[in-house]
């Protein structure tokens, strides 16, 4: 019987910790304005979202024929069309902070928002 309680406590701890981490990132972030668009782990575009006056969109294509249409508005970026069947990247909607990047797994597209206009050294450099 006691074992069940320990297990329940461990599960609760994981959930609480995840929630706390997300809440922390939610309340400390929000000032980011530079969108980084990666295709197949390569940085293809950096956009200052606050400098965008007129909304525009561009196409990102992969080597094997997949494509995503990325739309940029003032302070926001999102995917409006994708060649993949699940379309999770479209349903993620428009993002305006670093809380959750847009990821399209089949086309290996990642859109992330950071607070610096230059790619930071360190982990990102190591990852690529």
């Amino acid at each position, binding site marked *: 019987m006691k*074992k*069940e309680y320990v*297990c*329940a406590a*461990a*599960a609760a701890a*994981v*959930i609480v*910790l*995840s*929630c706390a*981490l*997300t809440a922390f*990132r939610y309340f400390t972030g929000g000032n980011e304005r530079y969108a*980084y668009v*990666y295709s197949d*782990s390569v940085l293809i575009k950096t956009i200052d979202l606050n400098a965008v006056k007129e909304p525009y969109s561009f196409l990102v294509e992969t080597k094997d024929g997949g494509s995503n249409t990325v739309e940029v508005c003032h302070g926001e970026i999102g995917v409006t069309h994708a060649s993949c069947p*699940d379309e*999770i990247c479209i*349903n*993620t*909607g428009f993002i305006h902070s*670093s*809380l*959750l*990047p847009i*990821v399209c*797994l*089949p086309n*290996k597209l*990642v859109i*992330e928002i950071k607070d610096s206009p230059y790619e930071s050294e360190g*982990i*990102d450099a190591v*990852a*690529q």
Partner: protein
Amino acid sequence: MNKIKIRKLVTLSLLCALSLIIFTVESMIPPIVPIQGVKLGLANVITLFLILTADKKSAAAVLLVRIVLAAVFAGQAISFLYSLCGGMLAFSAMCAAEKLLNGKPVWFISLVGAVFHNIGQISAACVLMTWAVVYYLPFLLISGCITGILTGLLTSFTIEKMDKAGLLQPFKDVFNKE
């Protein structure tokens, strides 16, 4: 001796087919949450069931065959790598948890499996894409806890009902009398 071997082979093949059916049907359900990697993971019921009632070697075999065949049916080479990383990590974690806890509570072993499946997937995505996908981990851990408990309860109900119907013992016999 030979008879038992054939029975074991047939049983494992059936379970393999069953987990593939579960996997295929589940993949037809449209994603509810717009976050990559959030899914019910119902096929894990078969893996967990085998870990608990049969032996770990059979469970690993069924899991591996399922991952490979699922990738063939789904036709996505990238998702194969994610499921392989997640599946192997989840399997090892579930085996360790099962040994540590002596097989109970089932829902917690399943939860450990789900959480480690997500960790494995995110690690694979980090290596294959960018570090930014790490931000998905808290969301996936929460969803992993919920879906893990659900599939774990499903597994324990299955075992309970099979035991009541007298089907569990003949199943166990296939694996123990080798």
